[in-house]
């Protein structure tokens, strides 16, 4: 019988003392925050009991910010400063934004990502998203009664590296410890899989406000394995509203609309769309600022006809994912419907026909992603006992590659590779005596660079002069568990190592984050320094706790001398905690991290040994 372990008093959290962790569904139209309480995932409502937070942010002249319903109420009257569907702009340049001409904003085409000019100054989509996340963080902290230890934020599975990086930056900016970026369909599968203890192949059809994802997963004994994912990051419920808006303008023979009238009619279009889900026809009435009265009736049949191409468009990625997975529609045991837009009967019908079975709708399509994210956050925060966790194996949605001669793309990591993943490729020089090489990192499936998304450009300098083709430059792509890429390059023939590591250019530099933080604090009247100190202490506590539990489990892997060095670093970190200097704490954290590196590596080896030993015994 195994001996029961008892921890030193005050050194280990009591079992009931769970780390506060939340899952956040940062949606195009609505956002939600959820947590696991007493083993059950629940959405946290606001003080008025409303579960959703409309993803709307309004900037006011005095620098203050309104979010959610408050901002929604003013959207028609102040369209320029009231940002809706900001998710569509994350990690996007102005030319990538669909319907930019219909949007009532003052866009600024900045390098990399589009910016918005408001009465409170120029705002990046990251800052706008951070306001939504901040509102959800405050809601969660008020309702849970404490600081959050961490959050899982969901992203569309089809988000590229730039969009993911932007989302993670928004989380940091909102003061969240982002435990993981989780793909929305995968989050939905967790909620469904655990609710129904399902086994087999499932498809998740996720049509949100602005994005469409299709993931195919294999579920078996606590393992969620994504086998293929596909989608369209520019297709969602918003497009159905736009279609309806065009129909209204055409039917009522309206002249070009002011931003305010556009917003008003878009709101009416959305209401009509939602009404048509449960009724045969819908009335659209609006008094425009020109005095004109719009009064139209639309029936289901007309609505289906004008949106038919959108529904068909969503089926293309479905077929592609099935082919990538090597499956036919009949191999799929269940189709999970996620996202408010899947309530539309024509969508349900089309998906049902393709798979030859009725889609699953037993969880609220608005909440299922947040619930799954909360369950994953609970696991990642370490709140679940060992053995009760599940394993999640996700993939990258789009191939990552590098530009070669003639504007062609050499794919380095193919789409649907399980993450984390790394792949290296060798390149050589083109001219005699060439001492530098420039690299262009792209993402996408097309063969021409011009058709892919540009992620980063960087140069490797200091290559010793050699004949053309003699240098050997090894470029390594590493994708982490969030699906985020980092790239490094190294010249290796001469041993004179030139190396460079880059993060794709859409990501914010630490200096940008600091500036944005300062901006937001100047309104919130919080102290940046106090915040940094509090964060450093939280990081330190987390590391101390992790180190203690590692020592408790595997101290036998260390010699007395090694153990002493780690203990010293632990004490040094503990001593630094009461100090007022966040940098001193950060240094002590780094020192402890270095001191435990070898220990961490041994623990990992031990884990693999145990896994294999267990397997061999199981085979006997």
């Amino acid at each position, binding site marked *: 019988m195994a001996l029961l372990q008892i921890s030193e008093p005050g050194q280990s959290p009591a079992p009931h003392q769970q780390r506060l962790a939340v899952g956040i569904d940062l949606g195009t139209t609505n956002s939600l925050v959820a947590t696991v309480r007493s083993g059950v995932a629940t959405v946290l409502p606001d003080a008025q009991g409303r579960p959703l937070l409309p993803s709307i942010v309004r900037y006011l002249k005095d620098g203050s910010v309104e979010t959610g319903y408050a901002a929604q109420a003013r959207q028609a009257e102040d369209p320029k400063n009231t940002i809706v569907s900001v998710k569509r702009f994350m990690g996007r340049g102005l030319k990538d934004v669909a319907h930019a001409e219909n949007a009532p904003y003052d866009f600024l085409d900045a390098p990399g990502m589009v910016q918005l000019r408001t009465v409170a100054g120029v705002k990046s989509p990251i800052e706008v998203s951070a306001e939504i996340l901040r509102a959800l963080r405050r809601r969660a902290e008020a309702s849970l009664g404490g600081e959050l230890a961490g959050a899982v934020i969901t992203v569309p599975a089809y988000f590229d590296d730039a969009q993911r990086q932007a989302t993670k930056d928004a989380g940091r900016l909102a003061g969240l410890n982002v435990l993981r970026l989780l793909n929305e369909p995968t989050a939905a599968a967790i909620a469904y899989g655990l609710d129904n203890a399902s086994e087999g192949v499932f498809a998740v059809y996720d049509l949100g406000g602005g994005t469409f994802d299709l993931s195919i997963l294999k579920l078996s004994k606590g393992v969620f394995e994504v086998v293929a994912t596909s989608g369209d990051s520019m297709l969602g419920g918003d497009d159905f509203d736009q279609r309806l808006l065009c129909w209204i303008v055409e039917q009522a023979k309206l002249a070009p609309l002011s931003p305010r009238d556009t917003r008003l009619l878009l709101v009416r279009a959305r209401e009509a769309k939602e009404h048509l889900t449960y009724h045969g026809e819908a009335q659209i009435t609006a008094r425009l600022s020109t005095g004109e009265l719009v009064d139209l009736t639309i029936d289901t049949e007309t609505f289906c006809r004008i949106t038919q191409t959108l529904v068909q468009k969503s089926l293309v990625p479905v*077929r592609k994912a099935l082919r990538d997975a090597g499956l036919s529609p009949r191999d799929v045991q269940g189709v999970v419907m996620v996202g408010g837009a899947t309530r539309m009967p024509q969508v349900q019908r089309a998906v049902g026909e393709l798979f030859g079975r009725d889609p699953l709708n037993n969880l609220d399509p608005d909440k299922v992603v947040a619930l799954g994210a909360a369950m994953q956050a609970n696991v990642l925060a370490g709140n679940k006992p060992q053995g009760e966790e599940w*394993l999640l194996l996700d993939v990258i949605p789009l191939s990552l590659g590098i530009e070669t001669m003639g504007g062609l793309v050499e794919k380095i990591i193919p789409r649907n590779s399980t993450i984390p993943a790394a792949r290296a490729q060798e390149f050589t020089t083109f001219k005699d005596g060439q001492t530098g090489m420039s690299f262009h990192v792209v993402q996408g499936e097309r063969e021409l660079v011009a058709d892919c998304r540009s992620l980063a450009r960087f140069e490797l300098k200091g290559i010793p002069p050699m004949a053309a083709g003699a240098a050997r430059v090894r470029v390594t792509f590493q994708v982490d568990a969030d699906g985020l890429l980092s790239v490094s390059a190294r010249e290796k023939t001469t041993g004179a190592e030139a190396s460079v590591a880059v993060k794709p250019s859409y990501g914010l530099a630490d200096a940008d984050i600091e500036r944005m933080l300062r901006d937001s604090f100047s309104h919130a009247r919080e102290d940046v320094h106090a915040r940094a100190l509090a964060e450093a202490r939280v990081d330190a506590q987390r590391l101390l706790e992790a180190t203690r539990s590692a020592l408790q489990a595997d101290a036998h892997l260390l010699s007395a001398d090694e153990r002493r060095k780690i203990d010293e670093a632990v004490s040094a970190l503990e001593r630094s905690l009461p100090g007022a200097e966040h940098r001193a704490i950060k240094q002590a954290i780094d020192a402890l991290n270095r001191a*435990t590196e070898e220990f961490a590596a041994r623990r*990992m080896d031990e884990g*693999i040994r145990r896994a*294999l030993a267990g397997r061999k015994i199981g085979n006997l």
Partner: protein
Amino acid sequence: MSAAAARASTSSSHFELFGLTQAFAIDLRALEKAYREIQARVHPDRFAHAGEAERRASLQWTTRVNEAFQTLRSPVSRARHLLELHGVDVAFETNTAMPQQFLMQQMALREALEEAVARKDAGALDALRRDLERDKAALERRLAECIDRERDYPGAAGLVRELQFLEKLAAEIDAAYETIQ
């Protein structure tokens, strides 16, 4: 390079990592089982709340385990890995000499593919895909004979190149579905 990275990259063959015998014909279920058991121990999700050193070690190990799994799961890369362990380079890039008969057969298949695309005939693509799967299965059986029984590694290299050809064609058929839609 960190301690874990050094270990993750220098550790033995992919087969050893999963506790499998070195062979072309492997039990895919056993591979999958070992893969999942190791992942359950090293995956970054198990270390999200741990210190930086452990998170980094976990990332490096998981990356290595994923790579090994991908290599062994696909017949072409599994065969290539096996031959490399026996000092034979398959040389996809430089050695393109193929038997005459095989090339003729490939040309015929490619013509059929082009015709199916021109006619936008999804049924013909389905038929091609089925034939190709049958050819691939036959080739894999021959590879197993050649590597596991006859231990003719240089001879196997030619078969691996043929299999690679078929894989490429399969990818082209898949891409063709998109162009005819």
